[in-house]
């Protein structure tokens, strides 16, 4: 029999249904793997007791013939941005020291009621701000993959970010799947770096209630999984209208898994010329070309499209997201919960608490955002960025009149070594160049592992879909996945 930790959601579901193993056995196997894999630093908090309790409940449900959820008995990691009742929730930040929420986020509650078993809280960039998981107060996460050659050979690599712990856990066999959140690429880029599947659904598909906010108009939760089918199963369990989130969409959730037919014949796939950037890594271009060929072979029509405002996306994103963050993070003031560093006055207490509680990147973005919203600069920065955002959304709208999905690379490079780009925030921000436009437009995007770099590191391709058309997106992604025949298990070998 296959090792339990080598199963995915779909195959584990079959095994559980057939009674080949119990949810408790599955949980125990993963708890061991989590302990054995601590070197990756993928988890901030391990919750083996919670996992075993929920696994037992799942086994009870199966024993009693009660209703079985889509994720029943499936062991997952939950990004530490989701508030979990009775379990420490840190957002990767010192400022939330000791914060144990008395409530459960809607998405993690949905997963729990679908039967999912929580193994722990996954490490992440502080407040989801970062692209390499190096800004976490709880230390960097290591990518389970190692370069076989090149200048980074043998070095510890970043897993991407901000959902770096989630990606490393799934790639390293420390969770069957994980929740992530994506504001500008925080699911898709680490998925690409770690050779897994990650989908950022349409803005409004998953409730933001109980998810620590970074940039409210961009934040979306999504699944990070080993396969596209798993992503479909898990996304279905996470999604749904939530009256507690005013931006949640009151739209029915289709059966995403059923939407994966493998038949993509007749679909038109757009290739945006603006994504062919000067100085682009030829390996990335080659993989992209390969993706085009695969989809063509599967019966898709390939069409060039133009997204003319792409070049302004990153700049607009780095105004809008920090602006919202500067207000969203104002509540961490030392008054009610989390860290408090005393001071002689209220202002001193604020400064001491926020000065110690927030890391450099978070402080940088709060400052950028505060500046962008300041009197005299608001029109030049925030308003201008919002206009750019509208233009970008219109670009996509026009493109989607002719195509069913758009294919691009996920990230401009493979995973890099820990410590690289660390001193240069702008170089770090460029990691999001292909993912940010989708976020600004609120559209769904999925990263599918599509191949290896010359040095043996995973590279992902991104598919972008129409609003609330994750079904088509998953179907095309599945076709791409089949053609790429990516060997996911390499990572698990590399980590041991």
């Amino acid at each position, binding site marked *: 029999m296959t090792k339990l930790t080598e199963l995915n959601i779909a195959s584990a579901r079959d095994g559980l249904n057939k009674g080949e193993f119990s949810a408790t056995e599955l949980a125990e196997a993963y708890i061991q793997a989590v302990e054995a894999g601590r070197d990756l630093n993928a988890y901030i908090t391990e919750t083996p007791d919670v996992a075993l309790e929920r696994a037992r409940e799942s086994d009870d449900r199966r024993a009693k013939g009660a209703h079985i959820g889509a994720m029943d008995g499936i062991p997952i990691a939950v990004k530490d941005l*989701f*508030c979990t009742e009775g379990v420490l*929730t840190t*957002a990767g930040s010192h400022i*939330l020291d000791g*914060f144990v*929420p*008395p*409530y459960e*986020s809607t998405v993690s509650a949905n997963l729990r009621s679908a039967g999912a078993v929580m193994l722990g809280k996954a490490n992440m960039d502080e407040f989801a701000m970062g692209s390499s998981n190096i800004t976490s107060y709880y230390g960097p996460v290591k990518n389970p993959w190692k370069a076989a050659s090149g200048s980074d050979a043998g070095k510890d690599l970043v897993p991407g970010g901000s959902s770096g712990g989630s990606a490393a856990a799934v790639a390293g066999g420390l969770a069957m799947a994980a929740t992530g959140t994506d504001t500008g690429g925080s699911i898709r880029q680490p998925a690409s770096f770690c050779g897994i599947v990650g989908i950022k659904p349409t803005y409004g598909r998953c409730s*933001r*209630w*109980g*998810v*620590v*906010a970074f*940039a*409210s*108009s961009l934040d979306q939760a999504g699944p990070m999984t080993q396969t596209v089918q798993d992503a479909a199963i898990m996304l279905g369990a996470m999604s749904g209208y939530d*009256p*507690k*989130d*005013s*931006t949640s969409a009151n739209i029915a959730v289709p059966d995403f898994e059923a939407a994966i037919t493998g038949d993509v014949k007749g679909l038109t796939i757009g290739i945006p010329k603006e994504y062919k950037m000067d100085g682009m890594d030829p390996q990335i271009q080659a993989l992209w070309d390969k993706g085009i060929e695969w989809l063509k072979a599967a019966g898709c029509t390939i069409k060039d499209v133009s997204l003319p405002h792409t070049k302004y996306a990153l700049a607009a994103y780095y105004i809008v997201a920090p*602006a*919202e963050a*500067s*207000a969203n*993070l*104002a*509540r961490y*003031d030392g*008054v*009610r*919960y989390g860290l408090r560093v005393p001071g002689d006055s*209220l*202002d001193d207490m*604020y400064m001491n608490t926020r000065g110690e509680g927030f890391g450099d990147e978070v402080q940088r973005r709060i400052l950028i955002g*505060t500046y962008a*919203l*300041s*009197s005299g600069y*608001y029109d030049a920065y*925030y308003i201008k960025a919002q206009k750019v955002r509208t233009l970008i959304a219109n670009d996509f709208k026009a493109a989607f009149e002719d195509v069913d999905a758009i294919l691009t690379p996920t990230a401009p490079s493979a995973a890099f070594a820990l410590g690289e780009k660390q001193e240069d925030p702008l170089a770090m921000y460029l990691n999001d160049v292909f993912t940010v436009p989708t976020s600004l437009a609120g559209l769904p995007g999925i990263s599918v592992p599509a191949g290896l770099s010359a040095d043996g590191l995973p590279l992902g391709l991104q598919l972008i879909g129409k609003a609330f058309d994750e079904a088509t997106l998953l179907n095309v992604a599945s076709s791409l996945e089949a053609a790429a025949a990516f060997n996911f298990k390499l990572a698990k070998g590399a980590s041991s």
Partner: protein
Amino acid sequence: MSYVIKGETGDWEVVIGLEVHCQVISNAKLFSGAATNFGAEPNTQVSLVDAAMPGMLPVINETCVRQAIKTGLGLKAQINNKSVFARKNYFYADLPQGYQISQADQPIVGAGTIILDLPDGSTREIGIERLHLEQDAGKSLHDQDPKRTFIDLNRTGVALMEIVSDPDMRSPEEAGAYLRKLRSIVRYLETCDGNMDQGSMRCDVNVSVRPVGSTELRTRAETKNVNSVRFAMQAIEYEAARQVEIYDNGGEVVQETRLFDSQKGETRSMRSKEHAHDYRYFPDPDLLPLMFSDELVAEIKATLPELPDERKDRYINVFGLSPYDAGVLVAEKDTAMYFEAVAEGRDAKMAANWVINNLFAVLSDKGVSITESPISAVNLGKLLGLISDDTISTKIAKDVFEIMIETGGDPEKIVEEKGLKQITDTGAIETAVDAAIAAGTAQVAQYKGGNEKILGWFVGQVMKSTQGKANPGQVNKLLKEKLDD
């Protein structure tokens, strides 16, 4: 009634604009389900949203939106079917989110008007610039501990309507009349209870001065959180004088926020320059633009009660009251309701006179509101009924009224028990008249000699012998008949 400040350099007039925060009457807060009762134990009406726990999101309370629309309609204002909530960013310990959700450039209600009823019976129109919805902050309690400040979040997130006037007022009296009228309107509408002493209605006063005859708007100073009509008027008076003095001395008024010290009756600067706020307003990304249909507005409009201005018109046109009396009676909804209960089926002018001239004196004497009046509207109505049907004279009625103040009793019973019924039996009155004439030979002579005023002496005698119960009209008539014989 122009208000002129005599300065050393000439005559000055004051320019006043008011920003009034009205706490919306609603069971739950603007963006959370927590209760809004006044005076609850600290921190017992706080939801996770109010405490700004991580990941919590605001959801608009429809009742508060309806209340704002209703108030906008009551102010004859433009209702905006699309408005936008914005974050107003600042740090304070009783502001858990670190921002207040308010409305900036797209408020729910636009321009409207308020008609002031001035003491001389004239009216004056004051422009309303806008009304917007926003969250209230919590309370910082600085007096509980020598070193620490305690925070009560019960008020955090309660819905406020901020109603901003145009700078149309020119005297403290007009500002007072504006506040009273606004309070009256929101009370009629039942959208705010208007209790300034409990803080459910608070006022920021913007004052500037300018030479009489000038039309410029000079730098204003804003006095925050004034909590009574009287204090608002005092603050304006003080501010205007302070600013005139500054200009007289060749200085410049600085735009700043000031605080009213009700003990000393003066304003003083509240914030130093380094604390000048940049609120960094931007649309709240947690909330979609607030949109509603014309149908909703129409539906709410159909439920509007009769407002003070319409009611005043009715009192003038239907009841024949003077504009002044009508204005006084409609100012408070409770007074109007009382008056209408008294006047029901009776002489409305007489009812107005009794309420304004007699009852108000009693209420102010006892320091109670009309809802706590010792004399119920039903009983006052009965008293007027007794006068109208000649059961008692107006003079006796005043005695009965005195008894009613003390006992709160039913005037019909009081008249019955004390035997105060007017004597209308001509025979009995004639006997008394004859007796008076017989007893006053000297007075009869004077009368015959042309001194008609002496008639009063005879009336007094008759009233004395009948304990005031004789119908005065009949007494007069009989006396004249007999003396002129």
